[in-house]
């Protein structure tokens, strides 16, 4: 039987607004390595280091595994959505939130959080770490390193999925190996060595819930936007498997390794620990490639989200967002970090606001569409001329209730998880009864042209 003709026009590049055609789909390994490339960064090691100040070695392992298991479930479910639909997070969000809702939440999740916010912070981090490795060189001045480092990050994000994949193939094994060497040497050279690790008490003990919250919060944005990558996988299950393996094996490896290093040495900066013993080149590669593979993904997702309502070529958006991010990083570099606290608070706030967006999406795709009798393989399959809602008021209410009640008002449990579950529950208990009662849950209509915008 002849294969059906691909009905879409990829007007903006990299299939930003249309499904990825079957001929362009890639392997599970490629997707796994891109996910791991996002995870493999100095910030993840610093996050693990923070856990090392809160827990002893045994609890560190438990907290890391529990937090990662929660992320595996959330990300596994969202990853499946992208792999089935072939579309990005922001295109898929048109179903549970409507076209305008998808603009708003897409901008919050990726446009502001990843594309500008995290891109700027990670570029700034890059400058700081490069400066720590080689402090007396002009090219390693924080603001200068932020500029040239940011340029590399923009480059692979502009190339698109292929660029991210090639870089991840090259970088991930190297990063994991170098990080392992760094952990081993730092712990082994500490006063107590490996044998003393089990006896060390944390300097700043915290509750189990606080630890799990920290782990989930570290990567919840990533778990929400897995579809940006899994849309490229060949088989529906590939994306979920790729996500679960990296988050259940490699994330605990980094968190526990970094936490153990901090327990043993009191030092969270793996690059500094490596430089101190003469592994400067290894430290540089760790920082350079680690930051690069993470930050190009931030920029990539940011541009994808904004492309849903700014009809220009995706590479133009990528470059524009990248320049804004670099400018912020340069400013922080020159101002020695002045004014960072409000921004860090803002990023923390997003950790409570983002999960219910994933909750509503999961509820709509796996429960509401099942209730409506749609086959799993047919859900979120867009077609040219298809009518999509402008707004889905049930989705908007679910996110607001999830974020406010789950993220802030409920004082027990894990805020990120509370917010996600509430978003999920509110969506289900509003959408299904409304449907049974004949009350429309959507407002307005928009017919999709063949460009997908």
């Amino acid at each position: 039987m002849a294969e059906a003709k691909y009905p879409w026009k990829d007007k903006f590049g990299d299939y930003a607004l249309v499904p990825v055609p079957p001929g362009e789909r890639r392997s599970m390994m490629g997707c796994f390595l891109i996910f791991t490339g996002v995870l493999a960064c100095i910030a993840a090691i610093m996050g693990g280091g923070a856990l090392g100040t809160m827990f002893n070695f045994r609890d560190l392992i438990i907290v890391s595994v529990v937090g990662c298991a929660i992320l595996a479930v959330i990300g596994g479910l969202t990853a499946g959505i992208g792999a089935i639909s072939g579309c990005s997070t922001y295109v898929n969000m048109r179903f549970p939130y409507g076209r305008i809702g998808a603009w708003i939440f897409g901008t919050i999740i990726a446009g502001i959080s990843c594309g500008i916010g995290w891109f700027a912070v990670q570029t700034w981090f890059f400058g700081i770490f490069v400066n720590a490795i080689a402090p007396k060189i002009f090219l390693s001045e924080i603001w200068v390193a932020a500029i040239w480092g940011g340029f590399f990050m923009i480059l692979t994000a502009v190339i698109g999925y292929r660029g991210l994949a090639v870089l991840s193939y090259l970088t991930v094994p190297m990063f994991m190996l170098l990080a392992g060497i760094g952990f081993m040497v730092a712990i082994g050279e500490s006063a107590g060595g490996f044998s003393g690790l089990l006896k060390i008490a944390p300097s700043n003990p915290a509750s189990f819930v606080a630890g799990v919250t920290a782990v989930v919060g570290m990567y919840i944005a990533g778990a929400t936007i897995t579809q940006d990558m899994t849309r490229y996988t060949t088989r529906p299950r590939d994306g979920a498997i790729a996500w679960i393996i990296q988050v259940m094996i490699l994330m605990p490896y980094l968190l526990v390794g970094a936490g153990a290093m901090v327990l043993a040495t009191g030092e969270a900066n793996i690059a500094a620990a490596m430089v101190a013993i003469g592994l400067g080149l290894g430290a540089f590669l760790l920082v350079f490639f680690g930051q690069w593979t993470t930050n190009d993904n931030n920029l990539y997702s940011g541009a994808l989200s904004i492309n849903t309502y700014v009809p220009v070529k995706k590479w133009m958006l990528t470059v524009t967002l990248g320049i804004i991010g670099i400018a912020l990083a340069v400013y922080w570099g020159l101002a020695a970090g002045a004014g960072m606290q409000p921004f860090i608070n803002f990023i923390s706030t997003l950790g409570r606001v983002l999960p219910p967006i994933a909750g509503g999406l999961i509820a709509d795709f796996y429960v509401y569409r099942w209730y409506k009798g749609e086959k799993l393989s047919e859900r979120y399959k867009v077609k040219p001329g298809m009518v999509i809602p402008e707004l889905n008021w049930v989705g908007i209410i679910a996110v607001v209730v999830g974020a406010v009640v789950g993220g802030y008002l409920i004082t027990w449990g894990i805020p990120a998880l509370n917010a996600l579950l509430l978003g999920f529950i509110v969506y289900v208990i509003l959408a299904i009864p409304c449907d049974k009662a004949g009350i429309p849950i959507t407002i307005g209509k928009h017919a999709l042209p063949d460009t997908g915008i």
Partner: protein
Amino acid sequence: MDFKKYSSLMVCLFAVLGIALLAVGIVVRGDNLYTGITYAVVGIFQLLIALSAIPRLRGKDGAAMGNVVVQHNWWILSVGIAGLAVFPSRFFSLPSAGLVYLAVAFSAIWVILGIIDIYLAVKRTGARLAV
């Protein structure tokens, strides 16, 4: 040479180098434990990457075979770069400098042949750079 034969030969070479570095790591662990462990880990990584290519290459031809070659050579190259970056450092020095040079040479071979193999796989089989 036929590319299938060539890629099988390369897999064998990478595996042999991996085993050799693993052996060096075991031998030198008494002189510098960190060096011994690091050599052994890198050797095991490369050995596993090479050996896991064998069943994946079996029965494949053309671009499908090329894609497998590209994937495994990216990893060989990546681990090789890590070896090149850390092996020469003073921290991993050994009483016999010759063994350090040997480890560095192995890494250099992995890097150079990794790049060549990726190039050849793309050029001769039409494989993708990012699979």
